[in-house]
């Protein structure tokens, strides 16, 4: 374990621990509005200042980290599993299944998602608690994010289907789901890992964009997505550098994850 990796490990553990302990660490609730001090710079009371309606940024970052760090990987897991199932299985079965699955993923990728999401919003009730809205949002992301990865996986699985060791396994009498689970899936792991880690930041950002359709994390709950959205249109980073904290945090955490992962992958 080299220094960079140790550092990455420390960062990840620290950020996770701190965000899980948000209830105790946050000086105030994430929704409490200090109306005497909106948009305040960092101070002894508000370490990262306050946002436009006077909410403590530090508390919001803590809680937002917890939401995003918990749910984005969960959504990434859902989408990766779906990709493995659709892409992996199609590639493994080959022939008509592969063509069908490719057609389906292509169709899925070319669908006008904006309109479909508007429809989704239309059928959802308006009165959902912020927490439920977060769960719905990430579930949607997880259910929609698999298609591109499934394409890649179907190609890899197709190659595996024709590999010697799969032939050897079939000649040994293995077949069906067991053959897929034992021999094909483990070899898709690197692709699945990559897909998983790429999805996380993508989902964190998409969540913020879904807010435009009334699907994102609902106020007053913070998330990295909504914290990043506050940067939109910010013209004076130099005057208010502390507002970049969520962005820096996102980059640091993602980089740390990648660093931890790439090593694991090599030994795998």
């Amino acid at each position, binding site marked *: 374990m080299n220094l960079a990796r140790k550092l990455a490990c420390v960062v990840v553990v620290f950020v996770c621990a701190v965000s899980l302990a948000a209830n105790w660490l946050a000086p105030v609730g994430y929704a409490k509005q200090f109306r005497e001090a909106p948009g305040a710079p960092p101070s002894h009371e508000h370490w990262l200042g306050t946002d436009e309606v006077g909410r403590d940024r530090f508390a919001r970052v803590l809680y937002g980290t917890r939401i995003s760090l918990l749910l984005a990987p969960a959504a990434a897991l859902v989408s990766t599993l779906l990709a493995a199932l659709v892409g992996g299985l199609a590639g493994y079965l080959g022939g008509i299944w592969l063509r069908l699955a490719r057609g389906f993923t292509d169709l899925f990728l070319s669908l006008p998602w904006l309109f479909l999401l508007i429809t989704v919003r239309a059928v959802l009730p308006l009165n959902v608690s912020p927490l439920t809205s977060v769960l719905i949002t990430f579930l949607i992301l997880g259910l929609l994010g698999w298609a591109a990865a499934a394409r890649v996986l179907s190609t890899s699985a197709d190659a595996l289907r024709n590999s010697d060791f799969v032939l050897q396994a079939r000649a040994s*009498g293995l077949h069906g789901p067991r053959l897929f689970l034992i*021999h094909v899936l483990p070899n898709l792991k690197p692709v699945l890992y990559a897909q998983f880690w790429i999805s996380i930041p993508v989902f964190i950002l998409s969540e913020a964009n879904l807010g435009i359709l009334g699907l994102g994390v609902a106020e007053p709950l913070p998330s990295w997505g909504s914290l990043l959205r506050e940067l939109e249109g910010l013209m004076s980073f130099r005057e208010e550098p502390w507002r970049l904290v969520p962005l820096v945090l996102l980059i640091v955490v993602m980089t740390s994850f990648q660093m931890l992962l790439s090593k694991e992958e090599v030994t795998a």
Partner: protein
Amino acid sequence: MPTPDSSPTLLSAQVTVRYPGKAPVLQGISLDIARGEVVGLVGQSGSGKSTLALAILGLLGRQRAIVEGKIVFQGTDLLTLRERELRSLRGRALSLVLQSPLASLNPALEIGTQLREAWRAHSERAATSDDCDRAIQSSLKNVSLPCGGNDRDFLRKRASQLSVGQAQRVLIAMAILHRPALLIADEATSALDVITQSEILELFARLNRETGMSILYISHDLPSVAGICQRIAILHEGEIVESGTVEQIFTAPAHEYTRRLMQALPQLPVQREVLLARAHAVTLD
């Protein structure tokens, strides 16, 4: 389930294999293998050797390849069997060892896992993991790989941590787990260096001797075949052009192609005699 029969012929194949819209890959092949016999199938690459191996195992992908004729194995025509029945034969009564040992092992899995899976594919319901371990240990012992006691670590290795020779032994161990009646070795020694090659050949010969399993030994390399086979069939452009005992083939090749094969052998003065001697040694052993 094919009913066991006791006729001396284990496998008798008369097949034509073609792909839609193309010339046949195998044209009216006729091949018999007796119980306990080691038969060599020799031909250059592209002659259809591997196709025959896969056709016997029913792994050609029936929707694309058209297999005509019959392949009678232990009294049952394999071509009339359903996939489920074929599956129960594969790895149990019929097994296969492929050319490139390292590519034939799953890089993502431990050796032990792969052996266990192969065993489990045909194990009985009541079988315990002890049964499995025992079968694997005995198989490994048969192929002279480390087994039991302190050598359990071997099973935790992955393909990338093995030598080519070790990998091929693992594959053979996997192939003989269920004591098959017929083992098909498809260019099983071609990828190996000369010393390893002779070791593996020795292993095949020993397995044949000790367990009485028949072996269909497919190769492009006539000398290596000669070392362990009792009979040789020469495959050329999808047809068996000649077949006979090793002696017949070496001393009186009848077909033009066989003669060409013989001429292509290195012409060292003693070569032929040595080969013949080896052939006798094996057959008379």
